[in-house]
């Protein structure tokens, strides 16, 4: 993938390795990840549980718990600055200020014993040096921006007094406080209903076009990706298997895993009796990865070479990369 430093890129991740050392041995949660996000772009990171997508996001924020986890090697260039080389105090200035993050479970991410006002003001006072009164006003403004009705009154409520969707809106407001250049949304809609999911994603999309914030959206939902991402990275067992602009990925998937995933989900727009193809087997244990391609145990197209060496991510089209020895012949 284009790994040259480019001013357009807000974030460049280069050959990132994040490992966990546990009883089972060395778990390679992220095993050589390279990608970049442009200014104002929404990039989706798709994959199933335990494929390393959340760990890669936490690595960007340097929030990997040590022990057992450690970023073994790689570079994370945020606007040209390697986040893995900055001091912890500098990192604290970047976290929540220039990079915002939204988590999956709003209820466990908000502090239950503090009012919303207190939680929003904290970073306003810390990062933007506002006084109490201004911080409160700014909090109300932010809550209005994310579509919280009755913001003046509800700013003094506690998290439990809000529904899941509203809590997630508050999380988004919090992440936006300092107008970050990059917003990492880790499964932002997994715990909410579809109608609320649509509201939240619409909100994120509006904020992106309004402020030019780049969004890294981590999800397992292929529909969400199709609707809201400009580009998609597909992850499997700690590695990227395919990367492409959204339209290209869905119309001409090149990697057998992507193809399998797309063919295995029921769709509302296709005939009901459409046969779903099943990807047999389970994802590999990250502590005992196969010698060859990580997907080879479940792949119907694997050949001898797939069992022997790991396929590199190679260019297969305009901005389209796939990590499969057979990409050229399989993807039409």
């Amino acid at each position, binding site marked *: 993938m284009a790994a040259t430093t480019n001013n357009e890129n807000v974030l460049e991740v280069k050959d990132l390795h994040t490992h966990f050392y546990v009883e089972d041995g060395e778990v390679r949660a992220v095993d050589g990840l390279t990608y970049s996000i442009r200014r104002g772009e929404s990039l989706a990171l798709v994959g*199933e549980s335990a494929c390393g997508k959340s760990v890669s996001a936490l690595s960007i924020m340097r929030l990997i718990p040590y022990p057992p986890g450690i970023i073994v090697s790689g570079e994370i260039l945020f606007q040209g600055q390697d986040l893995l080389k900055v001091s912890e105090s500098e990192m604290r200035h970047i976290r929540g200020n220039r990079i915002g993050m939204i988590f999956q479970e709003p209820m466990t991410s908000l502090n239950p014993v503090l009012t919303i006002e207190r939680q929003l003001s904290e970073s306003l006072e810390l990062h933007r040096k506002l006084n109490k009164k201004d911080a409160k006003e700014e909090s109300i403004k932010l809550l209005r921006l994310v579509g919280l009705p009755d913001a003046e009154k509800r700013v003094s409520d506690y998290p439990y007094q809000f529904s899941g969707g509203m809590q997630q809106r508050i999380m988004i407001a919090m992440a936006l406080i300092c107008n970050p250049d990059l917003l990492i949304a880790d499964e932002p809609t997994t715990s909410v209903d579809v109608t609320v999911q649509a509201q939240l994603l619409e909100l994120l999309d509006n904020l992106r076009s309004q402020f030019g914030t780049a969004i890294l959206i981590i999800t397992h939902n292929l529909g969400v990706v199709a609707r809201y991402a400009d580009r998609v990275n597909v992850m499997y067992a700690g590695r990227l298997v395919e990367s492409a602009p959204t339209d290209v990925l869905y119309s001409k998937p090149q990697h057998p895993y992507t193809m399998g995933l797309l063919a295995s*989900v029921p769709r*509302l727009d296709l005939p009901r009796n459409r046969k779903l193809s099943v990807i047999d087997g389970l994802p590999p244990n990250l502590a005992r990865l196969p010698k060859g391609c990580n997907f080879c145990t479940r792949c119907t197209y694997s050949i001898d070479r797939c069992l022997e060496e790991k396929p590199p991510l190679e260019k297969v089209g305009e901005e389209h990369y796939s990590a499969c020895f057979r990409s050229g012949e399989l993807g039409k």
Partner: protein
Amino acid sequence: MASNDHIIEVENLKMYFPVTAGVMQRRVADVKAVDGVSFYIKKGQTLGLVGESGCGKTTCGRAILQLYKPTSGNVQFEGRELTKLSNKELRNTRRNMQLIFQDPYASLDPRMTAGDIVGEPLIVHNMVKKGNEYKDQVNEVLRMVDLEPRMAERYPHEFSGGQRQRIGIARALAVRPSFIVCDEPVSALDVSIQTQVIMLLMRLRDELNLTYLFIAHDLSVVRYISDQVAVMYLGKIMEITSSDELYDHPLHPYTQALLSAVPIPDPVVDRQRKRILLSGDVPSPVNPPLGCNFNPRCQMAIDICREQEPELRDIGGEHFVSCHRI
């Protein structure tokens, strides 16, 4: 509605939970989790029950199985009125109706082996004594869900999420039921594993002539597996019809909004779809709005919707809708 090919008939089922207050635990209000639900399922068919969290779909499934004592209403299962059965009779009947749970991590006893989890219902219902025959039956059920008999000695933590859900399915199947309530059976699983379990459930339904009540919030999955689909909102059924009809011609404004909120995993197709964005949240079931439950969020609402509750009525071709504007 009584007919012989209806394995289950639910009539005006209500399940209220009391809200109490004060030292005397006085009943001050009710959570109307299920508020007058009626439907039937034909033998060998699957009824999908969809709705957002808190709409009462899980409560509805449990009230049908008499795991909660319904506040009022009737449930006829294979011709027997379940709400009037004694505990002993109910226990015997339960052999024929089983439940598959959502969370394969929480629903299996971590200290029992897979074999014992699957075999326990056989013992409970006195269908077989421990011994070779018991082992054979357990092995057979495990094979039905594509698990190997040698796995019977293992404990739940040794299985993946998809395999645990298979154990949950095997446990439900062990007593050879005719009716199974599947409560969000795949929502805790990964995409590729979801498909494996959906296909398994469909195969078992066809092989064993099972009837399912399939409760889920994922509309694409529900459409795929169900013959009929009922849409629930705040304790009531808004629309119920065949799966194809519901997705091709949704009539209720809530169904329309719900369907349009589901993104299609194909950007080209998705861009061409009409999107209806609902505002606000689902009201509290303690204090449902006057008139139609959906009226505060409905773009089509007129005066009558705010005053009078619409009835679920047949608009032809077994398509039932509860809306004043249809």
